[in-house]
């Protein structure tokens, strides 16, 4: 409990330090970069709650759908890797290739395929970015399983399917959740970039919209919203889930 309070205190202190740094940068830029107070005032008087809600939901939808698709693909790939050592080696090297593909390449490829106004590219781009992170976590978790535990389960007559459901998958849950925390964060950040390139809604779309209008207060307001969204998602959802998933770890 004491460490959680200390944690919360650190977050509050850091929040104010960032605000101070932001204000200092604003002063140095002689008004080109708006400060936190101006930004909040602009948000209050220029954006409606429905616009904030609508665009935030689009970004969340893109990130969550892309992340879910990546998780399903990562679980399927990890299961394939456990069939035999050749497939394990194939999946490991495949993961290295996928990790090497830049988010920008995913964005351009999916924009070429689906077009600039399609809602699909931001979703698939987040999938492309989150997938290797999740796959690495899952493979790491599965490989960390003590071989003797598998042998013991086999002595009890466990089938290959039962080894997955009773041993490999549960053993890799804490690794996957920890990876999910990183992957969902990356998914949100990349979803915004994909929206900026080609989309008709979302936080990324609003960011570029105000940037193109040279409206830096609007740009900073939506950037602030993105940061707050990510911090809240991490602290209120991902961190508690990760703590729960690690409850049995020694």
């Amino acid at each position, binding site marked *: 409990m004491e460490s959680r309070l200390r944690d919360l205190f650190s977050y509050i202190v850091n929040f104010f330090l960032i605000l101070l740094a932001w204000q200092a940068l604003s002063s140095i830029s002689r008004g080109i970069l708006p400060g936190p107070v101006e930004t909040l005032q602009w948000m209050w008087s220029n954006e409606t709650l429905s616009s904030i809600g609508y665009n935030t939901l689009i970004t969340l939808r893109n990130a969550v759908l892309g992340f879910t698709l990546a998780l399903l693909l990562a679980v399927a790939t990890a299961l394939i890797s456990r069939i035999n050592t050749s497939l394990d080696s194939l999946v490991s090297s495949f993961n290295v290739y996928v990790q090497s593909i830049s988010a920008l390449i995913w964005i351009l490829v999916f924009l070429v395929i689906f077009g600039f106004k399609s809602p699909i590219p931001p979703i698939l781009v987040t999938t492309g970015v989150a997938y290797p992170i999740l796959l690495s976590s899952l493979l790491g978790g599965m490989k960390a399983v*003590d071989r*003797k*535990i598998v*042998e*013991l*389960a*086999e*002595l*009890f*007559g*466990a089938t290959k399917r*039962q080894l997955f459901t*009773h*041993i490999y998958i*549960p*053993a890799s*849950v804490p690794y996957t959740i920890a990876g999910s925390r990183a992957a969902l964060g990356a998914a949100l950040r990349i979803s915004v970039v994909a929206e900026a390139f080609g989309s008709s809604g979302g936080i990324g779309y609003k960011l570029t919209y105000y940037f193109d209008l040279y409206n830096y207060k609007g740009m900073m307001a939506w950037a602030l919203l993105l940061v707050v969204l990510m911090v809240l998602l991490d602290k209120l959802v991902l961190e508690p889930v990760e703590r729960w998933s690690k*409850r*049995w*770890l*020694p």
Partner: protein
Amino acid sequence: MNPTISVRGLYKDYDGRRVLENINLTVGRGETLGIVGPNGIGKTTLLRIIAGIEKPSRGEVKVNGRVGLVPQDDLLLPWKTLKDNISLGLVLHGASREVIEEKVKSVSSLLELGGHLHKYPKEASGGTRRKAAVARALVMDSDVLLLDEPYVGLDVKTTQSLAGVLNRLRDRGVTLVIVSHQLWELASNADRIVFMNGPPGRVDGEIDLRGLSQEERISRLLAETRRYTVD
């Protein structure tokens, strides 16, 4: 008495290195056999071969009945509670919820585990974890129980408690093979003790403690301790 376990001319090689040489053993039904020898002599390998986890390079191993293994490091699944660990084998065999509840309850009562079933392994003491590993093998109605260094790391009270449990199992007709590197750990359990030496690991002698009183067992073990060099 028909042997429950029969090991004939067993050899085991790893990458051209011989670790077990010409092992011959028989264990009768309801008998407790102790295997004593220095660390790294191949006792665990022998147990894993009897369990069927590893194959011998040469020789024959026959086991009549269902085998349960209690590994040295317990190997409890850390993400499952002790109750779920104990019932693992039953779940894998598709046993009904009622059967699982009944068997876990019965074995937990025998091993005095009742108050610990909801705990994760990390929350349980070493002795409780060891008992849970024994219970996991027992719920499968094992006829043969193979125990690898069951007393390592346990305090005197827990050692005595576990030794009592093993004696009760023997009285129920369960065949026990207990591996240890400490001769005295087997004093209260074993009907016979075989000594392994090497390398490569081979049977180097045997003492029969059947029919002896506790005092006679102790004086026999004292005499044998002088004959065999054990770590």
